[in-house]
């Protein structure tokens, strides 16, 4: 069996840079649509899927992802159902899947048990938004013994010597927080974040993926020019899901269009609704 870490490394080895890491909250708006979204992300050319396990108190997230977490939770999403969703997806797709969550759902299940079950379901990497370097030891140890990559975050506030410590403990890739504050769509790219990318790349051979605020092909091109190995797109996708809420086919189409536009750098295709999903209507 391929370990999660290997699967992520393969994606970075094979894909054209920058890879697109596409985020969605599991169960937003419901499980069948989530599965269809994940399939469409894959078909549209996303290189890695980042799946959010929703939490009641997502302090690293702006309003868009907060609302998605609430939609998913009120629809009954939980840890068991997320693992079932990934297992189902993994039985048909090879694309790496990483999980984004907060510490408490992991602690509540038991750290070791959480990682073993996650690996068994087919999850390749885990990012925990409120577990910084100081608290990562038990999570990283459990990740290592289950073959999952524990992905570390670096922020614009992180001083250089701390970057070195963080990246040396990181696995899979480094998540570069490209803006101060919480998740949410932002215009343009902060020059300080571009400098941060250089500072991180100088200290690690791991791929580096900026996230927070990235939504447009233009931003993707800026990151490409700066040498980013991947871009993480979150709120922009979740916004599409929210806007077209109640129209599952529209949701899936919209997500596919956005990813194609980001992947192929063609702004005109973004959100026009002219391009359908490449593989017909998803089966649910």
């Amino acid at each position: 069996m391929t370990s999660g870490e290997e699967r992520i490394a393969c994606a970075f080895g094979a894909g054209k840079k920058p890879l697109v890491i596409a985020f969605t909250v599991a169960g937003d708006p419901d499980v069948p649509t989530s599965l269809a979204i994940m399939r469409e992300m894959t078909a549209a050319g996303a290189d890695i899927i980042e799946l959010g396990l929703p939490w009641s108190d997502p302090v690293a997230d702006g309003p868009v992802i907060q609302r998605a977490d609430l939609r998913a939770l009120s629809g009954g999403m939980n840890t068991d159902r997320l693992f079932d969703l990934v297992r189902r997806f993994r039985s048909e797709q090879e694309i790496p899947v990483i999980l984004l969550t907060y510490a408490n759902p992991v602690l509540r299940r038991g750290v070791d048990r959480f990682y073993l079950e996650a690996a068994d379901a087919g999850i390749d990497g885990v990012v925990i938004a409120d577990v910084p370097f100081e608290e990562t030891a038990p999570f990283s140890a459990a990740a290592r013994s289950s073959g999952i990559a524990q992905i570390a975050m670096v922020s614009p506030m992180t001083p250089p010597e701390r970057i070195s410590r963080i990246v040396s403990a990181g696995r899979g890739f480094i998540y570069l927080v490209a803006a101060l504050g919480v998740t949410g769509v932002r215009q343009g790219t902060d020059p300080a974040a571009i400098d941060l990318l250089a500072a991180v790349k100088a200290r690690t051979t791991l791929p580096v993926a900026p996230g927070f605020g990235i939504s447009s092909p233009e931003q993707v091109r800026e990151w490409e020019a700066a040498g980013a190995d991947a871009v993480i797109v979150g709120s922009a996708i979740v916004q599409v899901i929210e806007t077209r809420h109640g129209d599952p086919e529209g949701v899936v189409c919209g997500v596919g269009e956005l990813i194609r536009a980001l992947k192929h750098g063609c702004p005109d295709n973004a959100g026009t609704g002219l391009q359908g999903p490449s593989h017909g209507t998803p089966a649910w």
Partner: protein
Amino acid sequence: MILGTRFGEYGGCFVPETLIPALEELEEAYRTIVPDPSFQKELSGYLTEFAGRETPLTLCRNISQDLGCRVYLKREDLLHSGAHKLNNALGQALLAKYMGKKRLIAETGAGQHGVATAIAGAVTGLPVDVYMGDVDIERQAPNVARMKLFGARVIPASSGTRTLKDAVNEALRDWTGNVRDTHYLIGSVVGPHPFPSLVRDFQRVIGTETRVQVLEREGRLPDAIVACVGGGSNAIGMFHPFLDDDVALYGVEAGGEGEGGRTGATLCKGSPGTLHGAYSYLLQDNYGQVAESHSVSAGLDYPGVGPEHSMLRDSSRVTYSSVTDREALDACLYLSRREGILPALESSHAVAYARNLAMSLDRDQVMVISLSGRGDKDLATVMEYAGVQV
């Protein structure tokens, strides 16, 4: 971090990476600025001539007679602003000033901490933004007006449960985006390290004064001390100077609707987990989703609790229990009628518990209740409960 971040297994820094450097900076200030004599001198100046310390220790003759033991109240209700929260707000606002911060943010439930921060901001010249849940803005209207009068902006927290928990979430989000020049003036002994230690140290004045006052009056330490526990700041401030003594300590949580109903009794009903940056007891479901709390008192309506209390619970050094909304309201009316003192609904929980505890004490035994705040803000709720027409 240089200092230990835990109380036993509890505490820590469960926050996004962006906040860690700010917490390190705050820890540095806690280690170097707070103990500095010039800082201490300036703070104690504010506490005495501005805030009105020391606060009295009142022997309550009527309820002592009723309850059959010697009952003292530590009168934090007489502190400027009407609650103990100002001890911490002045301490942290001054610290923020020494650290060169340009803006204060705070969360508030009952509004007492928001008012205290608004006052501290006014007096130190720092602008203040206070996050407050929609629901609390409605039930604590007088405090909202006071905050605005003192020049603070009150920002409604309309996410999640729309009470204290979500006000903290919003404050943390604000801080993450403005961390360079903003200080998050957290209102209780909760949050990531070093907040639980920092806030405790600013609230210890309650216990150190009480110790001296009781010794003066009784010639010995008290037999029992009772305090309400929301996040736990008045309780830890009161308890901490007595931890090594032979004094029974009682923390009282919000029992809400009582057995089987909605509750705010985190230590009594919860289990360990992470919320707002610390590993501590928590009201949560089997998947680690934080549960909604309930209490008639907005300041105790919180599904978390300070990590030092979690340690003291496990070691049994402090006995934690809860009283219901109804018992607290009754105690509020009782103290008002018998002693002419209107306690905050938060503090009324301690009074309610003390009424029961007194049954196990003898006539000459001494009990101190931390009267953390006054009840003017709760008038509407209390009058409605009592069926009194105004």
